[in-house]
């Protein structure tokens, strides 16, 4: 209570001007990162994985070149992760799978971000009946089991990468909408926004100039978490066979394929799964670090 308020007040955080505040936030986040060993390790691994996936097409190995003589081979100098049931190099296939998983995750996150920001700002700014209605929709959508919703809607869309991205994005924006709404409501009451409105600045301009920038730290934080859950959703859908379709493959669909060969080649089941775990863990950690940036009070022990 009072003690903690005091530490914040004395640390000079709220008193400093805007540029200084940004800097203090960044340094608080950096310090949170430095003191969290699992965050350092996982985020470093994430960076390596992302880079490897990005440069995969530059590698001299064809992910679709089959070599039936060497199918389900173990790791060797030639194939460092071994080969799959058709003798394809599993390392390169894993990287190509990662490209799909990460791409779907990223685009689905952006979709949900757009919907979430629009719904959140509208609900927060307009208020009243519109707010009530939108939030009721948010409540219901977030309590219906996501797997049911996502699969039902995917039935009505043509299978393909776009529909997976859309489906995941369409059902994961609720949390972002809630956060943005709260931020918007807080900002709406602030003097400078009311002043801007009094001066006749248009609503869109107020939103673009003031509301979204102020909510940005929260949005960035929420988007890392949202990215992690989008990757998880995609892998579950692909594993169940209603996600990414052949000939494309993602980590989830690779795991589905590996089910049949688990007894002979467990590595095929371990590698993509491990990568999913690392990537999701790292994005969640990144989200935690970002939260310190968005709300430095998390650090001083006031909130969790």
């Amino acid at each position: 209570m009072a003690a903690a308020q005091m530490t914040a007040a004395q640390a000079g955080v709220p008193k400093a001007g805007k540029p200084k505040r940004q800097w203090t936030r960044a340094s608080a986040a950096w310090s949170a990162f430095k003191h969290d060993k699992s965050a350092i390790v996982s985020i470093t691994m994430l960076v390596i994985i992302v880079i490897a996936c990005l440069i995969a097409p530059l590698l001299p190995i064809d992910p679709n070149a089959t070599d039936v003589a060497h199918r389900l081979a173990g790791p060797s100098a030639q194939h460092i992760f071994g080969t799959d049931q058709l003798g394809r190099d599993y390392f390169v296939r894993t990287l190509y799978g990662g490209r799909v998983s990460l791409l779907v995750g990223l685009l689905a996150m952006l979709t949900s971000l757009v919907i979430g920001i629009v719904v959140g700002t509208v609900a927060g700014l307009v208020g009243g009946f519109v707010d009530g209605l939108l939030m009721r929709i948010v409540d219901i959508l977030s309590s219906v089991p996501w797997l049911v919703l996502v699969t039902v809607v995917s039935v009505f869309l043509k299978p393909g990468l776009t529909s997976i991205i859309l489906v995941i994005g369409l059902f994961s924006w609720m949390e972002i909408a809630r956060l943005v709404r709260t931020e918007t409501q807080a900002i709406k009451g602030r003097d400078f926004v009311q002043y801007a409105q009094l001066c006749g600045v248009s609503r869109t301009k107020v939103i673009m100039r003031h509301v979204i920038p102020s909510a940005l730290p929260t949005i960035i934080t929420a988007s890392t978490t949202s990215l992690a859950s989008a990757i998880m959703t995609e892998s579950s859908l692909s594993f169940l066979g209603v996600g990414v379709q052949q000939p494309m493959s993602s980590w989830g669909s690779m795991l589905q394929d590996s089910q049949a060969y688990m007894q002979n080649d467990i590595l095929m089941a371990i590698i993509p799964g491990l990568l999913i775990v690392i990537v999701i863990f790292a994005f969640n950690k990144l989200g935690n670090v970002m939260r310190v940036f968005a709300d430095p009070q998390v650090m001083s022990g006031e909130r969790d």
Partner: protein
Amino acid sequence: MADQKRTQTAGADAAPTREAEEGEGRVAPGAASSHELLRIRGLKTTFHSHHSLVKAVRGVDLTVYDGDFLAVVGESGSGKSVTMKSVMGIMPDNADVEADELTFDGRDMLAMSDEQRRCMRGPDMAMIFQDPMTSLDPVKTIGNHLREVLKRHRGITGKRADEEAIRVLGQVGIPSPEQRLKQYPHEFSGGMRQRVLIAMALCCQPRLLIADEPTTALDVTIQAQILELLQRLGKEMGMSVVLITHDLGVVASLCNRVAVMYGGLIMETGTVRDIFYRPCHPYTRALLGAVPNPNESRTGRLESIPGSAPSLIDPPDGCPFAERCSFTSPACTRGIPDFIDYATGQRARCVFSSDELDAKQEGRK
């Protein structure tokens, strides 16, 4: 600064002497009795966080006598709340509390175990807080709150506990206490909740009650009622009261002694009369304005001093008030000044004596 011997020629009623500590066995003037109930020497409290240390209290000496009504005054962040919470032993885990000496009624609190310290909270000293709205457990009835305390500290249970609870609620001025017992905190107004908290304290029959800005969150009319209640109960029950406040207006009518805190240090102590009529520290003077007159009904709100409180992460070497003080000299930044003791019993932590300050002020005009 201690080795910097100074000879002073000052007015007869205010001959300052430099002493590192309050004279042993000497009772502060204006004290209600000569019996030291709480004795604090060299109290330091530091908060740890990932990247910094916050020195919230940097060496506080304070004595509370039996029957005292002592006001600890200072703006937010001056360390007044932290001081008293440290004495209570209810600081969070990330706070380090050190002291040279900490005794209650002659018992050495520093030598006590956590369990012994816990047993002191309630029957020896109890504390009520700023915000009565959040101070009570929202899912427990008022009766539950009171019965729990009665059982713990006085072994009273069952019907007798209810009777005692009703009696105490009546004592703090809560109408129809029988019905109120069954109600939840949210059914009470802020002022009524603060009364409930005071009732909880009374159930423990403490020798010392610490009230941490008990009226800040309340309406002005309610504020006076609560403070009067505290004063009356203090007298009736022979209870010493420490009132933490940032409102000097409150102090004049209630208390017998005042301690002024700033930047984690005590700046000045003395009787209410002396502090108001003859403030010896520039900070106290700034608080009171140019013409201190407690009879003039004015509230010395602290925000009126230009500048802001010093950072406690990296506090300045010298006097914490130097930056905002209108009498600052190079000496002010060379270490924390010692107390000057005045014949009135006042003590002020300033490099200049009261007379020197007066002279400087005259010179400016």
